[in-house]
Structure formats: C-alpha cells, structure tokens
C-alpha cells in the first residue's frame, strides 16, 4: 500500500486541475494545502469567504496585522491585485456562480454527486455549517479532497450518504489518497489510480459501483515533504 498519496500529494493533484485565471475557494484542512501547489506560470486568485479575493500565504502579525485573517482566523498576506470586501459581497461571489471552483473536504460523496461534509453527527458538539452549503450550491465546479476510506476502513464514496447532506448532486470530481474519480451519469468513474493499486482493489474500497475510464492512468504525484 506504499503507493497511497499523502495529504500534500492529494492537494498537489487537485492543484494540477486549477486552470490559469481561476477564482477558487479552498476549504479548511487538505484543500487549503492546494494553494502551495498551483502550477507554475498560472495565476490563480484565492477567495476567502470572510472577504478576500487574492489571498496569499499565512503570515506573522508583523507582516499581516491581526485584522487581516482568513476564514480560519490565520493571519494572511494579500497578493498584488487583491481586494477586500464584506461578507455579503463575498457570498454574492459564492452563490452567484462567480467562483470557478471550490475544493472541499467531505465525510461522504454519493454516486449521484450528493455531498455530506458539515454534520459529523456528534450530538454533544455544537453544530457548525459555516459556508459549506453556500459553496456547494454556488461554485461552478465543486470538487472534493478526502481519504478514500474512513479510519475504520469504511468507504467514503457511497451509494447514498448516511451523513446529513450539504447539497444534492453537486460534486464533479473527487481526489482521494487512492484515485481521481469523476461523478458521472453512469456513477463513479476512475480517471487515475495510485500505483500498485488495481481497479478491483479500489472498487472493493468504494461503496458504490466503480468503472474505469477508457484512458484511466496512474496517479503518480512527486515526492512532497
């Protein structure tokens, strides 16, 4: 199983699909790491839902100041050409279809593109939905980065989501530590599979029917720290 991708490699793979000129929102966790792997020569504007387009890397207090933060509260820098605005404008960008892509974490994705990524079903913790439903309903392309199976080894790609839904039928593509998988009218289609992993083994770890694309390739990211 040494061919499985690390978190950084999953983010790297997703970043390869972000085109030049794109406006993207990167979710908390693995998705935000994709900012480190934007393909050289492409200019990508990163949107943060608390009111930034053109966000740069995290920064020290001296560089950023405590009033310039991302949606997680990290102090951040701005790229040249960035803009700051209020939350109402920020969500006009999201729900109005002005974002080219969002990369989100998830608990489960169903074969019809249903997304479950907000309610972890722990009744003792206060609920948190944040901007997940807005991003899932509004971005032009909704993509997910997540481990292929749970810690217990159960599939996260499923026939029907068991967790409460974030949005119905929105996910286009899933980047896991085992494969790149598209959600199509025919169900899950593997585009790339990690080295050393066969389609049958991958299908066994997937909770809904999985077919391989005719040109299905090897998912081979570079070694990343």
């Amino acid at each position, binding site marked *: 199983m040494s061919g499985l991708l690390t978190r950084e490699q999953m983010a790297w793979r997703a970043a390869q699909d972000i085109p030049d000129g794109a406006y993207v929102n990167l979710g908390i966790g693995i998705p935000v790491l994709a900012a480190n792997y934007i393909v050289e020569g492409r200019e990508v504007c990163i949107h943060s839902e608390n009111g930034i387009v053109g966000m740069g890397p995290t920064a020290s207090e001296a560089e*950023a100041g405590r*009033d310039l933060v991302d*949606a997680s509260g990290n102090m951040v820098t701005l790229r040249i050409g960035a803009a700051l605005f209020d*939350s109402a404008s920020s969500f006009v960008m999201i729900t109005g279809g002005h974002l080219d892509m969002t990369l989100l974490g998830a608990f489960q994705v169903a074969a019809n593109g249903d997304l479950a990524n907000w309610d972890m079903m722990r009744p003792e913790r*206060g609920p948190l*939905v944040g901007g997940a439903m807005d991003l899932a309903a*509004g971005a032009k392309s909704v993509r997910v980065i997540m481990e292929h199976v749970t810690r217990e080894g159960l599939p996260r790609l499923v026939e029907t989501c068991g967790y409460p839904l974030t949005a*119905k039928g929105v996910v286009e593509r899933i980047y896991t530590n085992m494969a790149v998988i598209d959600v199509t009218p025919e169900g899950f289609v593997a585009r790339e599979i990690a080295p050393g992993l066969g389609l049958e083994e991958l299908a066994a770890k997937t909770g809904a029917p999985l077919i391989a694309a005719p040109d299905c390739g090897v998912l081979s990211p570079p070694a990343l720290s």
Partner: protein
Amino acid sequence: MIDKRVATAADAVAGIRDGARLMISGFQEAGMPRALLDAVLDTGVRNLTIIAVGIGSVGSRIYALIEAGRVAKVISSSARGRGQALTPFEKLWTAGKIELELVPQGTLVERIRAGGAGFPAYYTPVGVGTKLAEGKETREFDGREYVMETALKADMTLLRADRADRWGNLRYLGTQANFGHAMTTAATVTVAEVREIAADGAIAPGDVHTSGIFVNRVIELADLR
C-alpha cells in the same frame, strides 16, 4: 449638527433591554467589538438573542455573555469550539438551556442584508434538500429548486471598525468589514467602536466603506484582544 460620538462604552450600549436581539460583527479576530460586548455584560441585560457568524472563536466575548446566562438564543453558522473541551455554549445547549438556529453562512448574511434593505424574504439555492431547509417553503424558478429564507433584523448592532467620523461614516482595516457592514443596515440602533475618530473631512467621501446613514453611535475604544 450631527455628532454621533459618545463618551463611554456604557453610553454606547445604552437602551439595550432584556429580550433584545443583538447583531454582533466579527469573523475570528477581525471586526469583533470586544469593548462594547464587555459593556453589554456590565448592563446586566438578560434573555438576549445573539446573531453572529460564529460564537466559537478564541477569547470570544460572546462566551462571556453565554456563561453569565444572559443569552436565550443564538442565530449563527457556527456554534462549535475548536478544541476537545466543550465550550460554554455546548454545555448549555446539550443541557437544553439555550436555543440555536443554525444558518448557512451566506444565508445568514443575506437574511441580514434583506432585513436592512426592507425585503421580508428571498429565495436561495443554498440548503435545498438538506435538513436546514426542512419545513421551509420551496419554489422552482427556471427548473431549479429554491428555498425561501426570511429577513433578520435586530434591536442593536455592535461592530468594530478602524476609523469613524462624527457623521458615523466608517472605514475598515483588513477583513474587519465581514458581517458588520450588512449588520449596520438591519438594526434599530447601530454602534461602532473604532481605533480612531477622525477629524471632520479626514475620511474622504470615496474612502467611506459604510455610510453614516446606517450608524447611530461611534466611540473610540482600545481593541480588547
């Protein structure tokens, strides 16, 4: 003469009553009116409804109000703490002693904006088919399903900005605007704490972020981080 400056934090929050609906700006560290929230605590007012993007950020003065038993209901997109330990809100909520209305982040700000703009409700694609839309009216436009969300208004809005003038015009620093700008429009009384109250004319008309038409009181207060 118009002069919206007030002398003390107590004057700034004067008139707040038991049962008041209170909008509070602030996204993580930025825009949170900490000194005004301390002043609200000092009034002893009870049975508040708090409307805020999140209540879980570190050092949140909202927790102080909740721990003191002053809050009956929270309307928010995030009510979860970050660490393993349960937050003051989570302890009361799981015990059934505080009410929560969980709202997607963009829906929350747009409901506030609608309240400020004089619209009673609007339709959104966000949340359709999820449990946060259960029981709400839905309607189809051009083949897509939308859910009706109702406007939010408040008795008082509290926010922090960087600069103000005596007319109540505001300028924000970094990501301070977040929910504050929409909230200024949706409350009977809007109060801004600022780093600096500028001399007449020192904020150029084109540099104003929030017009003083929405702001009733301004006060220069140190940011209580």
